[in-house]
């Protein structure tokens, strides 16, 4: 015969069990005859349950290798020797505890209130490659009177991993028949047919009982006691009243089941000692080692920044030439042709939007390359190892282990990192971590670091950017220790376990897709912020700053923009960059770091006529500014500037996120802390640096 299947999304009344499942038949699809005995097919997701169902019934149900494939109840006729039974494919479930809708449905169908509506036997599929994971369901079904047959699948996968299963020993340990099958090659089906038929004929099974739940009442014959009862002593099962969904009693029951599972696995499974160490194990011996591991991590990150800056540099130069050359000239010529040249409109478009936005656009290849490299590292599984290495370091320094996650997110963007502190159950940990997140170097700061590093240290740009990231990590650790030793001495450690996935070859599709995802997010946000900031900065640069002139006809150095920056500049003079042009970028950077470069580009673009502008001129202007403000120590001053940029307030969006998560008081403390740390470090770097450099 050719069995067909029908499916139902949910039985109308699960309390009536499988017999009540109202399947939507397709008219011509023959089912098992009315009154046929029912066999339920159960098992965890992703163990080959649907594949076996198809093999047994000849059905064409959807088969996939991802968890949760079976989301409906499938039904089909299964031809056993001399009898046709109704095979019901239950939703994937790890247990009969109602932890998910699938498990709830499976439990309701198997343990229907009416015993007559329950299946005649339950076939539980277990993956030989992950046997323990599949046996919890077996343990629970064995506690009922339902006859159970365990079917082992994925024997070949287990064999490749050096796992050998002694079916007979496992059968003894589980107290139910165990059959190995290979549904894809249709092996073991005869054995399964025979065993299931025998289970159906045998009737209700003797439930497995947790010895700890058995209360014996000694009958007194032959002097039997509770510890040494005789066979005729009455036995009662102790079932304490549950006081909640997850009680200590439930853990105790689950623990007993796992002890039973562990005994079964020990009895029936042998792992061959001659299995070759996997590549993952070999590599992990080095990359997660306590001393070598951090060094490898640093080397990998250095390589990422080196490759990023070296490879992206020619592309960046090309875009710079395009924007500051033909694009600016074409717009100027176009505006001149329609009579708008030389005025405010040309100034806004060419010196504002094109200079500002165009300069940031030149960083697209660089950001794209860095996102791609990070995506490749993530996809390969290496970043998980980096997490182990970094977490171990934080643990040794006494910082909360789980704070690692938001801090890692912070290296992308500080705003979601602050939101991610919600994962910390301890309020003090949340506040501490929220105060540390702004010290992680977000990707917006990267563009400024790259511009300054390539301008001032062209030969060692990658190393300089890497050093800034290293400084960021050091700041997080040191500030964390400082806060812990002053404000929160009582904060305890929080254990963190990292589950390492095996290494895999990165896929181009996934890596490119992740890169595009992040690049698009960067461009979308940066684009909006930059255009808005460019407009405000341009407006401020058009307004006279008290030294005479009229709107739109004032030199940029006499504008309100310059006046505000000059007011702040003396504070930063000890750090070697007390020039209004350098400080103006920091003022704008308080709003958003994405706008730092665009504001510089605007400022310097206004200072020279468009006709005389040269590609790469921004770097030359910056060189001159820092040379003049530092008294000839431009290199040291720019390092001090980068340290300041790294440590002070990331952006107003971060402040807003902090206020939402930890309140005004702590946000204010964080703001002051950032500014003080940034100033002290920048001054220290410059004052010490100029003595030795």
């Amino acid at each position, binding site marked *: 015969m050719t069995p067909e299947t029908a499916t139902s999304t949910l039985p109308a009344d699960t309390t009536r069990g499988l017999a009540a499942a109202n399947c939507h038949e397709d008219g011509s699809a023959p089912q098992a005859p009315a009154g046929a005995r029912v066999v339920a097919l159960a098992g965890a997701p992703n163990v080959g349950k649907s594949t076996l169902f198809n093999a047994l019934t000849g059905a064409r149900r959807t088969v996939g290798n991802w968890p949760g494939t079976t989301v409906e109840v499938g039904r089909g006729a299964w031809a056993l020797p001399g009898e046709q039974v109704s095979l019901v494919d239950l939703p994937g479930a790890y247990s009969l*505890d109602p932890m998910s809708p699938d498990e709830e449905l499976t439990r309701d169908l198997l343990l229907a209130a009416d015993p007559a509506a329950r299946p005649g036997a339950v076939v539980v599929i277990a993956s030989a490659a992950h046997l323990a994971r599949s046996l919890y369901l077996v343990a629970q079904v064995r506690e009922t009177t339902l006859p159970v047959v365990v079917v082992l699948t994925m024997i070949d996968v287990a064999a490749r991993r050096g796992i050998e299963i002694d079916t007979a020993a496992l059968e003894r340990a589980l107290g139910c028949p165990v059959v190995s099958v290979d549904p894809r090659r249709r092996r073991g089906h005869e054995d399964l047919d025979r065993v299931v038929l025998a289970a159906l004929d045998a009737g209700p099974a003797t439930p497995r009982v947790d010895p700890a739940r058995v209360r014996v009442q000694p009958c007194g014959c032959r002097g039997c006691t509770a510890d040494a009862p005789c066979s005729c002593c009455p036995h009662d099962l102790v079932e304490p009243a549950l006081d909640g969904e997850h009680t200590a009693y439930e853990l105790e029951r689950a623990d007993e089941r796992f002890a039973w599972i562990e005994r079964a*696995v020990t009895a029936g499974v042998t792992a061959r000692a001659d299995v070759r160490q996997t590549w993952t194990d070999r590599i992990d011996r080095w990359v997660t080692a306590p001393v070598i591991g951090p060094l490898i991590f640093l080397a990998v990150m250095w390589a990422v920044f080196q490759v990023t800056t070296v490879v992206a540099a020619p592309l960046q130069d090309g875009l710079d030439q395009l924007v500051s050359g033909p694009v600016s000239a074409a717009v100027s010529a176009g505006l001149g042709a329609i009579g708008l040249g030389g005025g405010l409109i040309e100034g806004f478009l060419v010196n504002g939007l094109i200079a500002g936005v165009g300069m940031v656009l030149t960083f697209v290849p660089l950001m794209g390359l860095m996102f791609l490299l990070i995506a490749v590292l993530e996809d390969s599984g290496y970043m998980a190892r980096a997490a182990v290495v970094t977490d171990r370091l934080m643990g040794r320094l006494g910082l909360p282990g789980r704070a690692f996650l938001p801090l890692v997110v912070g*290296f992308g963007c500080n705003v*979601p990192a602050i939101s*991610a502190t919600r994962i910390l159950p301890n309020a003090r940990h949340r506040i501490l971590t929220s105060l540390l997140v702004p010290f992680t170097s977000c990707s917006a700061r990267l563009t400024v670091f790259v511009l300054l590093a390539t301008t001032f240290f062209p030969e060692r740009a990658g190393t300089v950017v890497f050093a800034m990231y290293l400084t960021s990590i050091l700041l997080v650790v040191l500030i964390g220790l400082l806060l812990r030793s002053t404000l929160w001495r009582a904060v305890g450690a929080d254990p963190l376990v990292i589950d390492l996935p095996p290494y895999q070859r990165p896929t181009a599709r996934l890596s490119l897709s992740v890169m595009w995802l992040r690049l698009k*997010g960067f461009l979308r946000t940066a684009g909006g912020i930059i255009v808005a900031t460019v407009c405000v900065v341009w407006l401020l640069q058009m307004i006279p700053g008290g030294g005479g002139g009229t709107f739109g006809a004032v030199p940029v150095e006499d504008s309100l923009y310059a006046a505000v920056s000059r007011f702040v500049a003396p504070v930063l003079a000890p750090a070697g960059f007390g020039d209004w042009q350098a400080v103006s970028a920091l003022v704008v950077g308080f709003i958003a770091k994405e706008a730092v470069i665009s504001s510089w580009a605007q400022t310097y673009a206004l200072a020279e006529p468009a006709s005389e502008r040269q590609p790469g001129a921004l770097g030359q202007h910056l060189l001159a500014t820092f040379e003049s403000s530092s008294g000839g120590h431009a290199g040291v001053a720019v390092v001090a500037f980068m340290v300041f940029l790294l440590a002070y307030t990331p952006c107003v969006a971060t402040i807003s996120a902090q206020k939402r998560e930890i309140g005004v008081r702590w946000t204010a403390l964080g703001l002051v802390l950032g500014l003080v740390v940034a100033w002290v470090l920048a001054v220290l770097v410059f004052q010490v640096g100029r003595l030795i450099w």
Partner: protein
Amino acid sequence: MSGPLTAVLKAFGAGVHSVDEVVVRTGLSRDVVDAAIGHLVRAGRLESRELAIGCPDGGCGSCASGQVDGSAGCGASGPSERRSGPVLVTLSLRRPH
């Protein structure tokens, strides 16, 4: 009673840093430890969270993986069913319902 689940929870409490360390500390097989952790995560006694880095500027609202309400869709700020990246398994105290 002190079975595999209790042993795994104790290992977490002792500050282990990897599942391999849990295996060594408990003396259980890797398969049983994996199953025990999976059960404790489903039961809500342990929390499994994906590691996410390189978030776009502007946060989850500007990320293509983000949810409509602006929250994370990748597990960066909450448990995720999709296990696409390395997984951090963190010990968390169960809160009463």
